[in-house]
Each structure stands twice: as C-alpha cells, then as structure tokens.
C-alpha cells in the first residue's frame, strides 16, 4: 500500500525526515509513534503530496508520489493534525464543500455527506455553524471528512484528540470496523495505549529516522519473566530459590521460560496461585528504549 525508500526532507539545516523506509501493507493497521518533532507529520505530509521530499522515493498503491499523487488521493482519507473547517458554515455544509471540491459529481452528495456524518457519530448534527462546536465535535467532523467517499487508505494524525473516553472507544471501534471491511489504517499518535490496542504493526520515529518497524506481536515479545500473585509468596521464594527477580507483597516476578510448567510446579507444591501470567514487553518500554527526548524539551 505504502512503500518509501530513503525518504528525506531537509528544511535548511534541519533534517526533519531522514532516510525513512516505511512499509505499510494492504489491510494493515499501522501505528506510527514517536516523540513530538520526530518527523511523523512531515512524513505523512510527504505521503499526501503536501510537502515535497528532498530525496527518496514514495510509492502508494503502486503509483509514484508526488508525480501521480492525483491518482492516489481519491482513495485516501486524511486527517492531518487538527481538522480544517470553515467556522461560518455548518458541519454538513463543510462536508458538502469538501465533497464538491473533489472529483465526482453532485449526484449522491447528500447521501455521502449523511453517511460520513453518521459514521463519525454526528448523525444528529444540526445547522449550527462549526464555530459553535466543541473540540470533540470538530474532531468527529474532521474524521467524517476523511471518511467521505469510503477511502481504501485512511491516514489519521491523532484521530482521538479532544474526545472523551467513550468517544475514543467509539472511534476505535469504528476504525476496527472499517479495517475489517478492507480499509488500511495509518495512524500517528503519541498515545501508546491507543496504538497498542488497535494496531497490528508499529513504526517508531525518533529525530527523523524510523528506528523501529515491526509487527505488534514481535514488539510485544515475552520478556522471559512470569508475574505471579499468591498469598504464599514466602513459600514460592523458598521453592524457586534465586529465580525470583522481584518480590513485592503478594506479587512476584519469576524468571521462567514456560509459564505453564511454572504453574504446574507451584500447584504441585501446594502453593495457592491467585494469578499467573507471562510478562510481555509493553509498547511503552519498547518506544522509550529506542527514542530520545522530543523536540519540545531542548537538550
């Protein structure tokens, strides 16, 4: 779906994006993470033909970008940073304006706008101008704009910005549903939990470079430790002798290759186990281990 090679963007002396080789497969849910100023947005803008690369190649849906970007964009829905809306128009009028600006005719416009609003949870929106909208409503309207004409690829920058927990959940479900129907997702965020929950692939940017790009399953590999909760913590320590890495009240962290075997052994010894689970690396650990400070905190 998206392939870039050696993609670089320099603004004067600053290298915003540095030799990025991004690979997003058809049907992926790709989460792009990275601290502020790591080049996520510049990368996305280059994919959309808004910013021109200093060097490197981009191919989207088999077409070279930006040379043939006009062939690609009709199948792309995008939310780049904040939604851009005309404050004096209603939500419906905003979408109708965008729809009319794109290719395709007037026929079915009302239905397309209605469907997009419905999907973004704004089905009951009235004729108030957008200037009266709350942050969350604007965000939903931006999403609705991206969903116009059911794109094959959705590029979303911070899609749940400004939404309340229920709204975040709704949008996540919506995105999962769209993905199940075949839409590829590329989501930029610095909300790790959101990416962890939704995405099948992760890319991490730091200081303009793509420092990690892997399927989520590999990123969240087991750490070789098993978390055990038991009221008989003392007996476990005695039993396992030296394999307990950490001990905090009822909770223990035990080095063990096979959690099932550990469990069987504990039970055989008559240890009462409340909870036992192999520990995986969290996305947060991984991201923090490969990234530095963001640009919002000058060294």
């Amino acid at each position, binding site marked *: 779906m998206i392939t870039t090679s050696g993609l670089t963007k320099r603004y004067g002396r600053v290298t915003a994006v540095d030799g990025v080789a991004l690979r997003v497969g058809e049907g992926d849910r790709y989460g792009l993470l990275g601290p502020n100023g790591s080049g996520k947005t510049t990368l996305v803008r280059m994919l959309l033909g808004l910013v021109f690369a200093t060097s490197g190649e981009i191919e989207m849906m088999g077409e070279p970008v930006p040379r043939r970007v006009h062939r690609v964009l009709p199948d792309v829905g995008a939310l780049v940073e904040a939604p851009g809306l005309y404050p*004096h128009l209603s939500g419906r009028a905003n979408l109708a*304006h965008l729809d*009319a600006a794109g290719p395709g005719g007037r026929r079915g416009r009302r239905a397309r706008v209605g469907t997009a609003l419905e999907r973004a949870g704004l089905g009951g929106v009235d004729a108030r101008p957008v200037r009266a909208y709350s942050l969350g409503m604007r965000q939903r309207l931006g999403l609705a704009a991206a969903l116009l004409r059911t794109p094959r690829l959705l590029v979303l920058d911070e899609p749940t910005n400004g939404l309340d927990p229920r709204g975040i959940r709704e949008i996540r479900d919506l995105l999962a549903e769209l993905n199940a129907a075949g839409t590829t997702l590329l989501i930029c965020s610095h909300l790790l939990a959101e990416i962890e929950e939704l995405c099948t692939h992760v890319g991490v940017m730091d200081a303009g470079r793509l420092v990690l790009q892997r399927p989520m399953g590999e990123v969240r590999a087991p750490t070789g430790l098993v978390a055990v909760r038991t009221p008989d913590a003392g007996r476990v320590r005695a039993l396992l002798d030296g394999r307990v890495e950490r001990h905090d009240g009822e909770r223990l962290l035990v080095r063990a290759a096979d959690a099932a075997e550990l469990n069987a052994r504990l039970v055989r010894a008559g240890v009462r186990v409340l909870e036992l689970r192999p520990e995986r690396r969290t996305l947060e650990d991984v991201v923090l281990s490969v990234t530095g400070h963001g640009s919002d905190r000058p060294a």
Partner: protein
Amino acid sequence: MIAVELRAMLRRPRTWASLLLLCGLPAIVAAFLAVTGIAPAPGQGPAFLSAVLSNGTLYPAAALAMDLPLFLPVAVAVAGGEAIAGEAAAGTLRYLLVRPVGRTRLLAAKLAALAAYVLLAVVAITATAYLAGVLAFGSAPAGALSGTGLAAVSLSGTGLSTGDLLLRVACAMLYIGACMLGVGTVALALSTFTDAPLGAALGALAALVTSQVLVSLDAAAAVHPYLPTRYWLGWIDFFRAPILWHDIQRGLALQAAYTAFFLALAWANFATRDVTS
C-alpha cells in the same frame, strides 16, 4: 471547482459586509449632498461630484470615483490576500489539496472567485449609486448644463444621451474592474507566500501606496508609465467627448502585464511549495 469557490465566496459573510461598506459610502455622500445642496466646486473633491446635483444619473460615476482611491482597493486586496493564505490559516488548504484539488485548479478557481468579487463590487456600487442618485437628485436634465433631450453632460461639455451614458458607465466599470483585478492578483500572489491573509493584503496595499506616492512625485517621472496606479483614473476619459483612448489603452495594457506577471509568480510558487500549514 470554480463553481465551488464562487459559492464559497457568496456564502462568506465578509463578502456582503464589504459590499455594504462599499455601497454605503456613496449613499451617505448622496444623503449629505441632497440635504444640504452644497456640491463641491468643479475641479475639487471626487470627480463628477460637482455635476451630480443637477443630474442624478451621473452619480454612479461619482460613486466609483469615491470608492476607487482607497476603499475598493482595500476590499479587493483583503479578498485576494485571503485566497490561499486564508485557507492555510483556517487549516482547510491541506484538506482541499488532498481531496484532491490540483494546485493549479485551486489557484484558477481562486482567481475566478476574485474576479467575480471585483465585478460584483463594481456592479453593486454602480447600481446602488444610480438608485441613490436618481432618488436624491432626480434624473431630470438641468437646462443650464445640457441641451434638450440629453440626460447628462460629458466632462468636455457636450451632451450625452442616456444610452450613450450607460454604455460609458459600463466601460468605466470594466476598466476599473481590470485595475482592481491587478491589485487582486498582487494580493493573490503574496497570498501563496504566507499563511497570514492580513500580511498578503498589507503587502499588496503597500505596493499600491508606494505606487501612488511615486505617481505624485516628479522626481520619479521616469518610472511613471510603469506604475500600476498611474492610469487608474483613465476611466474618466470614457466620459469625455470624444473619448480619449490613449490613457485607457495604456492602462489596460499595463494592468494586463501586471496581472499576467503576478499570476505566473503565484502559480510558480504555489505549485512547488511545501504546504506546512
């Protein structure tokens, strides 16, 4: 896309507010003149104003002369400066471009909307001024100034028939429209360089003020024929008998050159520029 931009222009409250202001000035002046009956002496104040007391049908020309030096160029520069920079500032530019709207197409649509706005403004000023003029001063010919059966008097003193006058007013409107489009394209070009619509408008106005100062400066006589505002008042020559074509032709050619240059500049910049707004 042109239709989309035209509709957007017509739906913008600012369009109507600016038209109201542009038409309001001549209406206020007409009210004062009609109440007091004190007209400026010939050769003083805005062109044509001395003649309107005797004949209201000439008031559209007087109204154009009032709005031309400052009001109209400001309105057009603001509209032109808004074109691209306004979309950038509102954050809508990137969404239009990824819809996708080609950059050249967007620029062409913005230019069309700007031209439509200029035309709308000039027509609105003329129409409301005609109404105000006829209401305030009547359309009856004043015997002292014009011959029998003639509605108005040209600046050179000979009479003009109503049809002839309307034709001349229409020509003047188009000429002024062309001059204003020149201003608009300067603002449009600057609008592709910045994300601040006010900055683009101010830049265009700065160019105009500079031009107007230089036009009045004898020391700058060498560059006078090339200054954008040099032939702005050329439309007055439409009301002379016979019409003096020299300044009109020079003015149109000059505006065409400026318009073409700044359009090319706008296109060259916008088509190759990173959109980071």
